[in-house]
Every structure is written in structure tokens, then in C-alpha cells.
């Protein structure tokens, strides 16, 4: 057999995997989204998604996902830039990744204690003379905790992009008289845009369907599409509606990826 034919054989395990765990679930999900509570065919679920309550929920989901991504980027880019300049790069990177080894639920529970009325954060605010205020169950705490959880996904792709940027380009720009700011704006940032896109996608897409943090940290004061999906599948047992929201969310994500372009190619190559 030729080399090429062998290569096709290697694809079989992955092909089976793809069909069983990627294609089949999506087909089931789409199928389920056209069923009503009694298992009859219907498009009512899709009509329902277009009612004000779900549109509002969708708007909130996108708004909070946008906020989380923006804050992550504003903190993440300088962090990644600084990381490339430090001496003990591997150590700092490890410290950044370390929290990812701790169970997510545990981290979120820790914030319940930290942000509580008698928690550490409020104790600190009081010592500073600002006075205690409600931190838990607010938009602020929701965005804060989400950023904390997602920020490594923003920093790592940007860090990789910056690492691969040849230092000679920066030197050349400076030699040719560009200021530090111009160098950053015209050389460094455009060349690391791929990393930024990859990071934004890695943060924005999972933020859209967050659900656990909305209940634990935001006390259901923030309702996202992820919460609605969980409710429909587990509590209401209205799988049709849950599947419909999931399908809409998937389409929305595909559109976002399509619009921002696949960041990888430009970024890391």
C-alpha cells in the first residue's frame, strides 16, 4: 500500500470519534429542538426564543460575555507583554496556570467566602475607610470572578504570539525612528492580533454559556442562556426548549468565529 493510503487508515479512529461525539450529538440536539413537551414536531420552540424574555436574556448573555472578554483583554495583554520580558518566564507562566489545576467549583466557592458581607474583601474595605458594601450577588462580582477564571485563556495565546514576534522587527522600528507607542501600535499589536483573536474567542464563547457562576456568585441576579439551558434540561425537563437555546447559541458562536476569523493561523505562524 502506498504511503497515502496508510495515512487514510490512520484517520479512522478520529473519524469514528468525530461521528460519535461531535456529529451525532449535534444531530440529536437539532432533532430535539423541533420537539414539544409531548414529543410532537413543532417550530414553537424557535418562535418562543424570539419572545422578549429570551431576547432579553440573549442580550444580557452577550453583554456580560463582552464585558468579561474586554476586561480579560485589558488585563491580559499587558500581563502577556510583561511575561515575555521577565527573566523567569517559565516560573511566572506556571504561576499563571497553577489556579487552573484547582477544581473550578472550589474556586467559585472560595469567592462566596471572600466576597461575603463578613468576608476578607469587606474587612479590607473597612480598614481602608471605604466601608463595607455588598459585593456578593452583584454584576461586579460576576464579571470579576469570571475574569479570574478565564484570564489564563486570554494570556496564553497572546503570550505565544508575542514570543514568536522577532525582536529584530521592534529594533528595526525603533532604529527607523518610531516612538515606543508607535512601534507598539503599528508593529507589535498588528503582528500579535491573531493571538488576541484566539484569546478573545477562548474567553467570549465559554462566557456566553456560563451557568454555575450566575447562581453561586451572582445569586441568579444575572441570568444567561447557559442558566436557561440548565433549567430546561434538569428542572423543567423541557428538553425541546433547552435544545433550541443550545442550537441558537451554537449558531451565534459559529457566526462570531466566522466574523473574527480563525485567529490561530495568522497568530502563531
Amino acid at each position, binding site marked *: 500500500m502506498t504511503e497515502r493510503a496508510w495515512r487514510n487508515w490512520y484517520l479512522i479512529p478520529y473519524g469514528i470519534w468525530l461521528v460519535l461525539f461531535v456529529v451525532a450529538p449535534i444531530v440529536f440536539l437539532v432533532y430535539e429542538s423541533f420537539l414539544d413537551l409531548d414529543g410532537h414536531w413543532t417550530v414553537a420552540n424557535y418562535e418562543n426564543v424570539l419572545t422578549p424574555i429570551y431576547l432579553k436574556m440573549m442580550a444580557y448573555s452577550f453583554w456580560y460575555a463582552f464585558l468579561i472578554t474586554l476586561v480579560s483583554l485589558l488585563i491580559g495583554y499587558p500581563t502577556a507583554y510583561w511575561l515575555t520580558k521577565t527573566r523567569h518566564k517559565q516560573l511566572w507562566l506556571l504561576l499563571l496556570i497553577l489556579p487552573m489545576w484547582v477544581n473550578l467549583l472550589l474556586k467559585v466557592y472560595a469567592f462566596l467566602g471572600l466576597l461575603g458581607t*463578613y468576608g476578607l474583601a469587606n474587612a479590607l474595605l473597612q480598614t481602608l475607610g471605604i466601608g463595607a458594601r455588598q459585593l456578593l450577588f452583584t454584576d461586579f462580582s460576576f464579571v470579576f470572578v469570571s475574569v479570574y477564571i478565564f484570564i489564563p485563556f486570554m494570556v496564553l495565546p497572546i503570550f505565544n504570539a508575542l514570543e514568536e514576534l522577532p525582536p529584530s522587527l521592534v529594533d528595526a522600528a525603533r532604529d527607523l525612528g518610531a516612538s515606543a507607542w508607535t512601534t507598539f501600535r503599528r508593529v507589535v499589536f498588528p503582528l500579535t492580533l491573531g493571538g488576541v483573536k484566539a484569546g478573545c474567542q477562548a474567553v467570549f464563547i465559554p462566557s456566553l454559556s456560563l451557568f454555575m457562576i450566575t447562581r453561586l456568585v451572582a445569586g441568579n441576579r444575572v441570568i444567561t442562556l447557559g442558566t436557561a439551558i440548565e433549567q430546561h434540561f434538569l428542572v423543567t425537563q*423541557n428538553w425541546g426548549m433547552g435544545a433550541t437555546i443550545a442550537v441558537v447559541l451554537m449558531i451565534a458562536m459559529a457566526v462570531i468565529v466566522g466574523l473574527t476569523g480563525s485567529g490561530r493561523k495568522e497568530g502563531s505562524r
Partner: protein
Amino acid sequence: MKRLVQGFAAVFIAAFVLMFITHRLNEAEGYGGGKTVTVYNWGDYIDPALIREFEKETGWKVIYQTFDSNEAMMAKIAQGGATFDVAVPSDYAISKMIEEKLLLPLDHRKLPNLRYIEPRFLNLPFDPHNRYSVPYFWGTVGIVYNREMFGGKRMTSWNDLWDPSLRNQILLVDGAREVMGMALNSLGYSLNDTNKAHLQEAKRKLDRLMPNVKAIVGDEIKLLLANEEAAVGVVWSGDAAEIIAENDKLDYVVPKEGSNLWFDNMVIPKTAKNIEGAHAFINFMLDPKHAAQNAEYVGYSTPNRAALRYLPKDIAGDRRFYPDLDSAGHLEVYENLGKHMLAYYNELFLEFKMQQK
């Protein structure tokens, strides 16, 4: 590459050795070979000493597994992969499981201790004549409140929650039936009401409660209330007992307009392999002394009338958790309202949650 293969080989060998050892250990302790009873219960919902006593008394070995929601438990039993000989679902889950034919009928001749159960807890609408289930624990839904933070006043009514002084001080449990039921009760309707006009009215009343609501949470409500994160919480009585045990400034009240009366019952799911052992276990738990010991450990209210004698006075006499059911207002068990009505309840609850302050 060679190192990699060696590494994998080492892991495989270690895994097989461990599997062999666990198998032998299980055999040595009497697990396996049809001598076991698998009990599927809520977490932290039994006195472990009773399991040991049951094993000693009967010779059956108990495999104890836990779940954290009726829905998860039902899904696992419906799939049928694992063997469960005894399970402990709640009332509405039982009627659903009967409908879906997930339960085996009980043989009452093998459950002589059933006679100790308080008659008013038998023959309830979710399982007429107790063909499939016998009560394990029961309780109510009510208000936990901090006497100090509530200015020393006593709460008596659901309508106290709407008091403007409670701004941003209430935690609600994240359950559509509980929250909608509370609003329906506060208006004097039944918490099984299916009149859409009444439900809409309840939803409008809930919207007015929103300024007082600090958060709508799950199991963390116990931790949050005990830490005085809020002055008031709407919770199940069992959770309330736990919260009060941790913080004695808190008190529990079942509002006078009425509330939910709930049950967790023992059943034999259709996945059972050891029917004999399952009956033996259920009968063992129905024994008054065992029921009393269990109630003291778990902190929920036992439906076993004869067990009350064995409970310390301060537990059995605590009117908050053993209310006089004739005068405790109008307590109702949730009826299975059907998928469509439940979806409507959930829709209204979701709309309520979407309200912004």
C-alpha cells in the same frame, strides 16, 4: 518512545494489580455474590451506625450510594445500568416514577413495622395505599429569619416578606414550585393551583418582592444564612434545622397561611436485584428505635409515631419541626401537575428571575 511504552506498561500493571486487590477485598468483606443491598439515598441522610447494625443483624452487606437531586436519581434509574435495591425519592418524583413504571410494588407482609408510621402520612395522593413507597422523613417549607437582624419581631406570615424594612435581605431557594407556591399561599390560593389567572397574580406579587430579594440560590443557602449574609431565607425545614444548629440567632417558622408538606419515601426501583434484602432494609429503618436514632442524627422529622418516644424531648417537642398538623395552617403536598403546568410554573419563575432591581 521506549520510555513511553515502559511508562504505559507500568501504569497498566499497577491498575490491574489494584483492581485485583479491590476485588479480593470486596470478596473478603462479603460484597459481591448477591449478598448485598445497594441503597441509593441523598447525601448525609442516614446514620452510618445504622448501616453497620443492619449488616450485623441480617448478614446482608450494604453498598451506599448518594445523589443530590431527584432528577439525577431518576435519570440513573431510568437508564438501568446500575443496580439499586432501595432508593429515597421525594413525593412528586415518586408519582412520576410510578407513571414511568420505574418502581416495583412493595410486599406489605414483609414490612410489619409499617404499623408504626403515623396514619396521616400514609395513603397520600402521590402513592395511594402506599403500594410503592413508605415514608422516610418529612418536612415543610418555611422562613428562616435572624431575630436580631429582624429587630426582634416575630415572623408569622408569608406577607411579612414583603415588608419594606427587609430591602435586599431575603434569600430564596432556587425552585419554581417553592417560590411560586409561597406567592400562591400568600394570596390564599393552593400551592397546587392551576388557574392561570391566579398564577399570573402570584407572579405579579412576586415582582413586587424583588426589591427585598438579595439572591436566589441553591444548597449554598445554608452556608449563607448561617454566616448572616442575609436576615431572611425561604428554605426546607430540614435545611432550617441544620442552619439553626449552626447559628442560634436564627429561628424557623411555617407561615400561618399554609405551606408545602413534603416527603422523602423509601422505594424499590425496578433495577433492584435483591428484593428480599431491600424489604429487610426498609423494615429495619421503620423500626421505631432505628428511626429515632436516624432522626436524631440527620435532624429531619421522622414520620414514625412510635419513634417519637425514643427522641429527646427538645427534638420531638420542637413545634417548628414537629408542628401540630391540625393547627399548623394549611399544609399541602405537591401534586404532580403534569408537564405542561410545570413548564408554565417554570416560565413564570424564569420571568420573575429576569426582573432587574
